[in-house]
Structures are given as structure tokens and as C-alpha cells.
């Protein structure tokens, strides 16, 4: 916001200058630089934020796994695969409606769901398969195997910056 104010102030100043400017005045470039920093930082902030949401679901799943609460684990796996719950989905819907697509190019290529930040379509499908396998497993070994599959996928996603 500060940067926007600065740019506006510089442009207003420019309007008052006599004659034609041969190049973009340095203060304008600097203001734009600052604005670019803000834009890029916001993108990084969004990525970090979604990463923290996912990390929270993974930690919760681990804690529930320790308690042997497999249904709870499954619920956290579902939320991870969907990059958050329906409330987060509502926020994402707002962003999309406003024209914000985090991975626009990759969405075009079918790699990401619209608006998704970290979880790829492929990873989502595999995670949901692991979730189904966990919920349908007839014994502990089956549940542990499904959980391991999910953990591996989650680790891969969260380790990529």
C-alpha cells in the first residue's frame, strides 16, 4: 500500500514538471521496484501461508496417528489433499473470482487445480487414493501402508520450494 501511495505521489509530481521527460524518472522506477517487491512478496507470502496450512494438517495427522485415531488421520489427509477445508475453499473461490490464479500457466497445462498453490492434480489424486485405501483397509498393515504412501507424497510437496 505504501508503494502505491509513493507511485501515485510521484506521478502527481510528474504532472507538474515542465517539458517532456526523456526517460522514466528514477523515483518512478524506484517506486515501481518497491511495488514489484510487494507484489512478489505477496505471492511468496501466499505460498508460505498455504504451506503452513498443509503443514498443520500433516502434523495433526501425525499426532492422530500416534493415538491410533485412523479416522482422524483420514480427515486430515482429505484436508491436505484439498489444500484446506471448505472455508479455505471459499477464500480460494473469492480469489479466483477476482482473477487471481496462483499457478495460472500450470493450470492451463492441467498440472494444478484452479487456484491451488502447492498440491498438484496428480498428487491430489494419489492422496485421495491413499485416503480411500486407508479407510477401506482391513488390517493395521493396510492402514500403515496407505499412511506411508500419503506421507511420502506430502513430504515431496512440502520439500519443494
Amino acid at each position, binding site marked *: 500500500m505504501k508503494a502505491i501511495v509513493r507511485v501515485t505521489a510521484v506521478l502527481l509530481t510528474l504532472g507538474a514538471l515542465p517539458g517532456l521527460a526523456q526517460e522514466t524518472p528514477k523515483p518512478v522506477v524506484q517506486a515501481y521496484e518497491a511495488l514489484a517487491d510487494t507484489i512478489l512478496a505477496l505471492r511468496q507470502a501466499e505460498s508460505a501461508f498455504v504451506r503452513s496450512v498443509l503443514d498443520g494438517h500433516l502434523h495433526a495427522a501425525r499426532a492422530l496417528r500416534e493415538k491410533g485415531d485412523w*479416522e482422524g488421520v*483420514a*480427515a486430515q489427509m*482429505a*484436508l491436505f*489433499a*484439498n489444500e484446506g*477445508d*471448505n*472455508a479455505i*475453499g*471459499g477464500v480460494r*473461490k473469492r480469489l*479466483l*473470482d477476482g482473477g487471481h490464479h496462483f499457478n495460472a500457466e500450470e493450470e492451463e497445462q492441467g498440472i494444478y*487445480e484452479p487456484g491451488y498453490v502447492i498440491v498438484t*492434480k496428480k498428487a*491430489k*489424486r494419489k*492422496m*485421495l487414493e491413499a*485416503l*480411500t485405501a486407508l*479407510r*477401506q483397509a482391513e488390517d493395521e498393515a493396510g492402514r500403515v501402508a496407505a499412511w506411508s504412501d500419503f506421507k511420502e507424497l506430502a513430504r515431496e510437496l512440502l520439500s519443494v520450494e
Partner: protein
Amino acid sequence: MSHGAPLRAFLVVTTAVAMTTEAAAELRFVDVAAEMGVTTRTWCGREEKPHILESNGTGLALFDYDGDGDLDLYLVNGWRLEGAEIAERGRDALYRNRGDGTFEEVTAAAGLGQDGWGSGVAVGDADGDGLPDLLVTNFGPDLLYRNRGDGTFEQVPDSPSIDGWSAGAVFFDADRDGRNDLLIGGYIDCTLGEVLTARPELAWQGLRVMAGPFGLEGLANRYWHNEGGGRFREATSEAGLSDPGLYYSFGILAADLDGDDDVDVYVANDSNPNYLYRNDGGGRFQEMGLWSGAALDHGGNAQAGMGIAHGDVNGDGRLDILVTNFWKDASTLYLNHGDLVFEDSTSAWGLHAPTFLPLSWGAALADLDADGDLDGFVANGHIYPQADLAPAAETRFRQRNLLLENVGSHFVDRTSTAGPGLEIEESSRGLAVGDWDGDGDLDLAISNMDAVPTLLRNDSTPRGAWLLVDAPAASRVTVEAGGARQTRHWTAGGSYLSASDRRHHFGLGAAERIDRLRLRTEAGRDIELRDLPVDRVLVARSLR
């Protein structure tokens, strides 16, 4: 699951039209709307449909409002627009079944005929007097009509309402206190001014069509607890039935999806994950859609959920769900494996190919040939009239509906061989199922955009034996006959903006007797009857 007085006695009423056979049935349907005297045209905006509200269509209901034992028909109506003007405010219509194969319109005499921009209809006993009341959802205030029991209705002041574009609605007893609560789904937050001034803005197939739902704000679903005495109190958050994503909700189904004797809720959301709310038994819900596997398709994609069909497709005693979706996206069959584990089994059941190209809305799973398994019927129609100008899209605004025969392990598309009723091309929306002519097979009522409804009389021959169980307070009905066991569940809502007959229909194939019939009461007690005749209507009322 309570719907008026608790069960106290069991009564068998007989009507018999025997036509039992072991031969495979040929499914056949004939449109008899004109013959039966149903002439009301239901409107939905302008011909070119520049606003998404004009793609909504309207619902209908088959229910016995006057208690004479046959099914009557209620049609919800919208408005007709010309340019930016309201050309006609269509009135809802009530048709009374004369019992002689014809309907008579009795709208005004029954005190009905609201002229709001209608959307859907729910049927349920709102005031506990044992009579079916009506809730009409509108683009505008929703209206609750109390059935007086003398063939007339009165509008209830201060009806529970979403004052906006509401879609599906359902009455059900969430907390098992004996009173029916109410859930209404919200679709999009928009104003009449926006509708009237809308222009086709979205680029599609080289044409301009209506925009949405992406880019438009959703409208929250709302839930009301029935306080008794006809009073409702909003309790959406308290009950856990909130709609945090403001998803675009259409069809709503209330049913016991996890078999624990309370009513859960499933909501088909357009372009967003579907909701599945699990009831804790006391009327508190938790949304479990993603966890259950019934929120997304097998690829993890949110689809454009429109309508919901429900029933036990594979004979394992559990309620499966079929959700209808958009053009070039298959309707999705979620098989219920128990404990709320649902699996997308669309392809395995042969549903991908026949449902991929149509744009689908109302749907039903019903034993249309009475051979002992549930067949499928899907109402189709595109949202863009401009589709007729885009041959590359491989679709049309007006489409054939879809008839799917269950052959035990999968469905087979029987649309092209099912008679003149399946040759009709309209832009269909609502669908309700019931035996309106009392001959023991299930007929179909379908609402069409800017047209009269299609009333498909079931002329399938030869047809298996049947049983119709009228047990509104039973949570589950199980029939064993001819070596097979079938289960029907108490459900409400489903389809698209419509309400089907709530009685439980069983096709019994070649069975000549019913070995065993078991009714699960709302208290969880089973009542069993043995060695019953087929081709009968069994009425179970006031049985404790």
C-alpha cells in the same frame, strides 16, 4: 425421521393389477401430459438466457395432498422476460389426480398459485398434523404453505426463507424430536436488476453466452429447527450445517447414509466439492465430504453437481448416490461401502459414456421394470440456447432424457428403444417419480424450460410383480421375495428442485409371494411380517 404420528397399527390395503412374468421387460414410456390435462407452461426468463438465473428451470412434486390415495402434481413456475421487462409472472399450479387417468387444475381452489420467480419445492409435514405441507423456494422470499386437510392450503406468515436465489430444500427430522426441520440451499447472490439488465458476456464456442457461476458470489445454505406449533428457528451454525465456502448448492438429499438410524445430509454443489454432513444422532452435523469420498470424482475434481439420485444400486443394503453434472462431464455414481466410505464407480457401472455429453439435472434410481433392481433416469438439457448454433460442441439446448437399465452389474442405455416418451427433446430440469396411475409401476414427471412438463407413463411390458409400502415413519423397509432381498430407506429431497412420492416401491420380478417384510421403526425396533401377497399397497400407519 418422524413424519407425524408414531406407528401404532398395521393395515394392509390391497389393489391388484397382476402382470407377473419371468421374461425380460421392454422399457417403454409415453408422454401423456396433454391426455391427462396438464397444460401449464413453466417459464424461466428470456429465450436467449443472458443471466444464469434463466438456466435454473423449476421443480415439481408428486404427492397426495388430499389424502385420497393417488398422487397429485405440483408445478413450480418462474417468470417470462422480454428484454429488460417482466412479460409474465408465471403462477405455480396444483393438479388434482381425479383417479381416472386425468388431472384437473385446482390451484386457485386450493389457495395456491404464488407468482414469485419459483425455483424448487419440498414436501413434508411442517406442523405435525400428519398432512403434507409445501415449501416453495423462489428467487425472492420462500413460501411455506400449510395443508389444512380440506383440500386447501394457507400460506404461513414468516416462512423460513432465504431471501434470494434459493434452490433445493428438504424437510427432515434432524434431532429425532418428532418434528421436521428444514434445510434450504442457496445458489447465487444476485438481484432482479442484475437479471433484467444482463447480457451474454462469456465467450463460448465462438459465441456469447451467460456468465457464471464462476465469478458470482454464492449464497449460503440455511437450516431451521422446528420448534413445534409451526414455528421455526434458524440454527444453521448451531447444527453444523453451515456453508463456509458459499458454494453454489442445488440438489439436497436427506437420508441415513451411514446406517446409524439418523438422517445425514448430502448437498450437490455446482463447480465446488459436494457436502456430506454426518449427523451425530442429536441433530449436530459435521461436514465429511472429502473424507467420505463423495465430494469429488475419482480424479479428485470438483464437478458441477446439479441433482442427486439415491438408492441401493448393487443390492448390498446401503444407499448409493448418483450426482448429475455438466456437459462433457459424466454423472458420478458413488457406491456406498459402509462407514461413509464412498467410491466413484461411474465407469465400472457403465455410466461414463451415456452421461458424458448430456448436461444433466433431475435424476432418480427406481425399479422401472419391476425386476428387482434400481434403474436410472436422468433429465437433460443445456443451459445455453446458443448451443444450437455451435455444432462443434456436440450438444443441443433441448436434449433427450436418459433411461438406464440396471442389468445387475452395470447400467445399459435404453433411451433409444424406450418408446416415444424418450424421443422428446426439451431442456429438462426437475424430475419426480411415482405411480400416478395406480397400476403398480413407476411413472415419471419432468419439468421443462419454457414448456409444459413431460408426464411419462410407464408402459413397460411385461412387468414384474410389485409392492408399494406406505410407511412414512419407517426408517427402513426390507423385503425378501423370490430369493432376493431389497432395502428401501427413508429419504427426502434428492433429484433437482423436486419431490418424488415418498412411498417405497419394490419391483419383485417373478416372485409370487413376499417371504418376509421388515419395517425398522424410528425407535430402532424391527417389525416383521411374513408370507404376504404381491401386487399390493401396504399402508403402515401409527405403528409403535
